[in-house]
């Protein structure tokens, strides 16, 4: 697939990452994490996984099975911005489903989630929508994270504002909700 070739991580970078962690227990996970981070679209592309496999002599099937096991590994290109909605019980009872519904108005998003996908990225690779089982911030439910920043007691109005802010050209980095 073309898109993978374009997005693959430079093998020199992979070599560096691999030699940095060589021989450490559990190195495979760390290597995979850093290679994903080195990818412009923050995912493990097929070519890079193949390269890790051939270099480390770990079968590709094993690398793939690790990648699919942990939710931090992405097998698809990720958007420039990420919005994560908590679907934990505390957030769920305080209306996080409504927040997710507000986001799934993005074209194609609802279909993806209805089909059982756990993450969705817009075609222009601007925004990724995901859910998490619990942020460990339940006292502040419902909780949403935008590019790693936690927002608490989020309302429907506010999530729309956050989404719009990301879609605008001149994003306000320090957006305040109240």
């Amino acid at each position, binding site marked *: 697939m073309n898109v993978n070739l374009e997005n693959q991580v430079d093998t020199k970078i992979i070599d560096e990452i691999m030699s940095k962690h060589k021989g450490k227990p559990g190195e495979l996970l760390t290597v995979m994490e850093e290679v994903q981070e080195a990818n412009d679209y923050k995912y493990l592309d097929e070519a890079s996984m193949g390269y890790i496999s051939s270099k480390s002599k770990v079968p590709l099937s094993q690398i793939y099975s690790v990648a699919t096991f*942990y*939710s931090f590994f992405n097998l698809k290109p990720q958007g420039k911005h990420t919005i994560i909605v908590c679907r*934990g019980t*505390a957030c*769920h*009872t305080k209306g996080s489903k409504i927040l997710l519904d507000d986001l799934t108005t993005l074209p194609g998003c609802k279909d993806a989630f209805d089909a059982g996908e756990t993450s969705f990225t817009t075609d222009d690779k601007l925004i990724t929508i995901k859910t998490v*089982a*619990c942020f460990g911030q*339940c*006292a502040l439910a419902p909780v949403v994270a935008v590019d790693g920043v936690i927002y608490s007691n989020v309302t429907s109005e506010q999530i729309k504002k956050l989404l719009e802010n990301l879609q605008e050209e001149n994003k306000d980095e320090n957006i305040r909700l109240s």
Partner: protein
Amino acid sequence: MSTSYQLKRADFIFKNENDWEDVLRKSISRPPNELINELISSELKGRGGAGFPTGLKWKVTSEEVNDVKYVICNADEGEPGTFKDREILSRVPFKVLTAIAICGHVIGARTGFIYLRGEYFFLQNELNKAINEFEYYCKEIKFDFKIKIFMGSGAYICGEETALFESMEGKRGEPRNKPPYPSSFGYMGKPTVINNVETLAHTYTIFKYGSKRFYDLGVQYSRGSKLFSVSGDTPKPGIYELELGMSLADFVEEFGDDDTKAVQVGGASGFLVPRKRFAETNIGFQGKLVGISLPTGGSMMLFNSSRSMFNVLDNYLNFFAEESCGQCTPCRVGCQQLLKGIKAVKRGEKNAQYLDKMLKLAETMQFTAKCGLGQSVGNSFSSIVENFREEMIY
């Protein structure tokens, strides 16, 4: 019991004491056996959920003959509704580091790990700074001990101790068969003590003040205090340290919103207690107390009468279906079946008797699933379906 018991606040864990250097130095100058006996007489039990006696765990691991052993602090904190470990690590990190090192002294380990939940990446910098300062002091007093952070990659099952080892070894986090237990065959096949963050913080209190201070809190079989993560329909969500053994009625009196219909004790893998059972339910470990004793990792979620128990159960089952590692059939298939089943009953496609079939399935999972995840699905399932049957039906 419950009529005479009042909510008793305690303040040990977060009390800011800048004496970790003293506690460390004094403790590692005591013989391991003495420290083990201190822990045993405190009757501290694990705060990660399972409630295994901590002193005994350290004792059996100390008796293993091996040059390499490990101490692991379980900071995976993935149970929805639990957020106490994060708070401990950010507010009193040195207590935890000190406890890890003392455990190393007791069992004969030179390396400790903190397995930090991936979602808590923001704790990493501060924690690494604390570790540097800590290791610097260890060097100064010629105590050879290293602590490293291992970041999780977003899988709830990795909180289970053997799955955690697998994950640290760079594999899929799938639970192992037990036995062998971590005390003889843990991380990298070496004898390992793995304790919850809060458990370790309590050992600090015990080594500092002696076991009696701890033992005098709580009730029989459930000694000491415990952090509770309070959330849901409550005017004051947050973290509270309370003595164990309180009755749920007293708890609701304090934290409820005057309309509490039920409390989920222990998160998705715990039990739902309906209002009519508040008075007879105590929070602590199993024992011969009057009424029912419910253990908990500390999650207390309150629901008021506006909440649908069907939605709550649906949410839990979605969680389990998502987080099941899929290794064993009862859990992999069971979670899906229960989830589909309650939806079918709700939509009227199956009749109410189908709920009884599912209760049997949940019970079977309890005995046949390989690890605590699959075994505990039945806890919330049965307690919700039995107590709120009418809400499950179309």
